[in-house]
């Protein structure tokens, strides 16, 4: 086989020789395609596996950890929660609308494949600087795509994040997360149960879209590639997905399905290989039976990533009933093969075996690399000059920075109340939905602090996990488990690889301390274009619960006259990275001081105080303190024309970042009770002011409330248009 062809398929020559030696024969082009699809980073985690294995993935509530379509946790009674986050970065750069739409579609299929009904989505999206027309185009396309798919299928979007930073100029990130509800005794797995079971194809017909999508997702880009790669982006049809979802859920609840796999990345290849591998069985598939949208070669059918397709295994005797249900939902359905005892993957086309491979070589012998990595150098300590900083300028710096402005423009394009169970919509510290027909609620948040992680990947990752944790705590949601999406540049660069290794280590430390295991996840590497790597962006999706919806906190001010208290510990001015960056004090990444070590026990202690005070109904509203400090937290809390009057020793304190930082609103009559509670727990607090009508007042200086609020609420749209 010629070298060029091998390299085109994203395999190294060494990798190819391993296969060649094992088989002791030449490969067919179809077989080469299969290895190309299965041995790339996206499917086999060859670079990250060694490190991912170190993550905590189990505790008493984990029903299913990583390795299935989604992780599942136990929510008492017969309720389980399935969730996962997944990236669609490269497709969303090449074709933002369809790239992001199919990202949502893919993650929803991962959820309902488990037998779970999706009940919420979130998304973490990052773009380059808005000054370029390209970013505006990408932002519009991505938000439109996410909205189009989720709105049409009818799953509420309850939150996420949207950030802008120059390293994402040519590598925007689109990470979509979905949460589903499943009855614990009705969870479906990808493992087939019996030899002789029929393999059935359910859903849209197969077309040319997305061929080699998974290997594209594991590639470094150059700008010229964009047009050439566009045909690799899949096209989504949310209406089809809605039918597919309802059809599949009906099949599963009728007990007609043995196992199910979504045809996602690497399509029919990856779903059938995984099925065989999980069940330790073989599969035989006749490609001539696959429903096609257009004439395709066997090679193309194997690698197509056409959307809205599922592969299922059913008992022969159920064939007729399955067909009937799918006919009602107007879904294509075809028996295309069966489960065998050969432990081989066999694909036939035109009466010829085009693929005949042992499952073992594809899955178990997939490469695993221990790539070289560097530990970042220790940073020198430096004192920054804050003498020229004025309060007015600090406020203007926030109000002219997209990252601080109200993102209604984004989430107003999403339906966040469909399904009728939404309790907290986007724009609050965490999104919250009710489990239908119960008093239980699920909260979820996605977060990442790339700047922190670039400064110190290990500590920075701890801060990232802690931020998600605080987002849930602020709403009185008990954090339970994590899904992660590790977005990095090329791991062939030992510095980048070092960030990957250390941040996984930080994730592990924090997840162990918070008892929030990682139950699902995704890795997206090679996010760099024209030699510009993205900042390390390991996004965390954290899920938690409260068994009583009446105990949930709001993040919005409740009543004029109530007091404002601050919990937690302020980071020093010299060690507040976002303060230094966004107030234009530090410009270059090498200028920053190292991060303060985050005390996770302290995080837990303060979090427990917030949870207990919430249960005592002493907290009227609460928000976590993150980028932009207390000031930004207070802006987000404004509601019904209520503002705030605060006094602090140094106005800069209002913009510093925090560990275990929370703003809490309490009634005057609860002041004694709350403060003595906090004193008893030896949790320091700071009383900084009160809620007032239509005003913002800092150290007796009055600001124009409506001017600030107008900018905060409406300037996002002005800046991006």
């Amino acid at each position, binding site marked *: 086989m010629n070298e060029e062809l091998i390299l085109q398929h994203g395999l190294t020559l060494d990798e190819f020789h391993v296969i060649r030696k094992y088989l002791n024969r030449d490969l067919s082009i179809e077989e080469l395609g299969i290895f190309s699809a299965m041995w790339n980073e996206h499917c086999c985690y060859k670079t990250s596996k060694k490190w991912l294995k170190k993550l905590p993935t189990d505790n008493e509530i984990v029903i299913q950890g990583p390795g299935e379509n989604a992780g599942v946790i136990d929510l008492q009674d017969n309720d389980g929660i399935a969730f996962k986050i997944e990236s669609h970065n490269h497709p969303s750069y090449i074709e933002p609308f369809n790239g992001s739409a199919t990202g949502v579609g893919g993650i929803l299929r991962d959820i309902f494949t488990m037998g779970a009904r999706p009940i919420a989505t979130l998304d973490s999206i990052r773009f380059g600087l808005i000054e370029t027309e390209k970013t505006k185009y990408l932002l519009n396309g991505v938000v439109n795509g996410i909205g189009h798919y989720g709105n049409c299928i009818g799953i509420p979007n309850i939150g996420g994040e949207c950030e802008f930073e120059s390293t994402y100029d040519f590598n925007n990130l689109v990470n979509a997360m979905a949460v589903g509800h499943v009855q614990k005794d009705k969870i479906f797995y990808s493992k087939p149960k019996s030899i002789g079971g029929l393999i059935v194809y359910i859903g849209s017909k197969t077309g040319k879209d997305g061929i080699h999508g998974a290997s594209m997702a594991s590639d470094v880009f150059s700008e010229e590639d964009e047009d050439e790669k566009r045909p690799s982006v899949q096209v989504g049809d949310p209406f089809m997905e809605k039918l597919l979802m309802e059809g599949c859920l009906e099949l599963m609840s009728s007990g007609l399905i043995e196992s199910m796999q979504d045809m996602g990345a690497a399509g029919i290849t990856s779903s059938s290989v995984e099925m065989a591998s999980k069940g330790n069985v073989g599969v035989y598939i006749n490609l001539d039976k696959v429903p096609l949208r257009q004439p395709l070669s066997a090679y193309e059918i194997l690698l197509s990533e056409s959307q809205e397709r599922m592969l299922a295994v059913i008992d022969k005797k159920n064939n007729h009933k399955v067909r009937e249900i799918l006919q009602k939902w107007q879904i294509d359905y075809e028996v295309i093969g069966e489960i065998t005892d050969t432990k081989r993957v066999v694909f036939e086309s035109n009466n010829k075996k085009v693929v005949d491979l042992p499952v073992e070589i594809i899955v178990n012998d997939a490469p695993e690399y221990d790539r070289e990595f560097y530990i970042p150098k220790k940073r020198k300590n430096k004192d920054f000059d804050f003498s020229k900083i004025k309060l007015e300028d600090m406020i203007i710096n926030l109000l002219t920075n997209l990252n601080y402005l109200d993102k209604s423009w984004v989430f107003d394009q999403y339906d966040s*109340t469909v399904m009728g169970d939404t309790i907290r919509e986007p724009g609050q510290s965490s999104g919250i939905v009710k489990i239908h027909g119960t008093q239980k609620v699920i909260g979820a948040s996605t977060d990442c602090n790339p700047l922190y992680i670039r400064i110190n990947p290990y500590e920075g990752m701890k801060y990232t996990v802690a931020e998600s944790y605080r987002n849930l705590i602020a709403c009185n949601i008990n954090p339970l488990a994590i899904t992660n999406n590790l977005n990095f540049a090329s791991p062939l660069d030992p510095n980048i690889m070092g960030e990957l290794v250390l941040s996984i280590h930080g994730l592990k430390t924090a997840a162990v301390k918070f008892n929030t295991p990682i139950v699902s996840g995704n890795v997206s590497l090679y996010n760099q274009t024209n030699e510009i790597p993205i900042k390390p962006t390991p996004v965390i999706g954290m899920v938690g619960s409260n068994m009583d919806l009446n105990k949930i906190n709001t993040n919005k001010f409740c009543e004029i006259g109530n007091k404002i208290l601050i919990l937690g510990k302020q980071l020093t001015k010299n060690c507040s990275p976002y303060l230094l960056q966004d107030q234009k004090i530090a410009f270059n990444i090498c200028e920053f001081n190292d991060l303060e070590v985050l005390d996770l026990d302290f995080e837990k202690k303060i979090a427990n105080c917030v949870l207990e005070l919430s249960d005592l109904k002493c907290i009227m509203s609460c928000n976590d303190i993150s980028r932009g400090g207390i000031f930004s937290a207070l802006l987000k809390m404004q509601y019904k024309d209520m503002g705030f009057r605060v006094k602090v020793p140094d106005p800069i304190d209002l913009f510093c970042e925090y560990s275990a930082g929370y703003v809490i609103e309490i009634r005057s009559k609860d002041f004694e009770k709350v403060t003595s509670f906090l004193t008893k727990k030896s949790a320091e607090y700071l009383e900084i002011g009160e809620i007032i009508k239509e005003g913002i007042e800092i150290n007796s200086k009055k600001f124009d409330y409506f001017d600030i609020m107008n900018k905060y609420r409406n300037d996002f749209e002005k800046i991006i248009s």
Partner: protein
Amino acid sequence: MSFKSAVITFPGSNCDRDALCYLKDLTKGEVHNIWHEETSLPKVDLVILPGGFSFGDYLRSGAMASKSKIIDEVVKHANDNRYLLGICNGFQILTEIGLLEGALIRNKKLKFLGKNCFIKKKFKNNFNLSIKDNQILQIPVAHNEGNFYCDTETLNLLKNNEQIAFEYCKGEFSNTEENINGSIEAIAGITNKKKNVLGMMPHPERAYSDFHQSQDGRLIIESLIS
């Protein structure tokens, strides 16, 4: 006498479950879910055409659903002087059937709009009896094509016959919009001439339970039952 109702489900409907819960919780009576391919409707007091993207909104929002088998029965139900409520996509379907005047075109900013909106009643009918004049209701909208449009002649008819049921308005606090999607005369919902058929873009079925942000959506069912 108990209040009976039904919700029609089309392929792509995604607020049918919400509408069923809304009816079950508020009417306490029999509630039926009817698949679009059925050819008969039980005798009920109210039929809801729910929100969603029936048939993927392909061709035109509501256009394909308006040709479903069940529609003949829905029309008979309305001609029998019984209540018919179309919410969001249901409103679009009603205009496509021709039971209601006008059309729903794309929102003025050409973007999907998913947020709380504020409405008040314009002319009295059986769907808004329990709502006070000038009472502002907070109810979510979620639509791409909710911008009500009709020609001047039709608009005059709607006004003269007092067929405008709801109009968008500003909320109590700052930063709320007068006319959220650009509808002609800020129309949020209209009835037919006999006032037994109502189409509205806001979703009352998402604003009735204690845990919802607002409970104003109850008033519509309460009006019908009272």
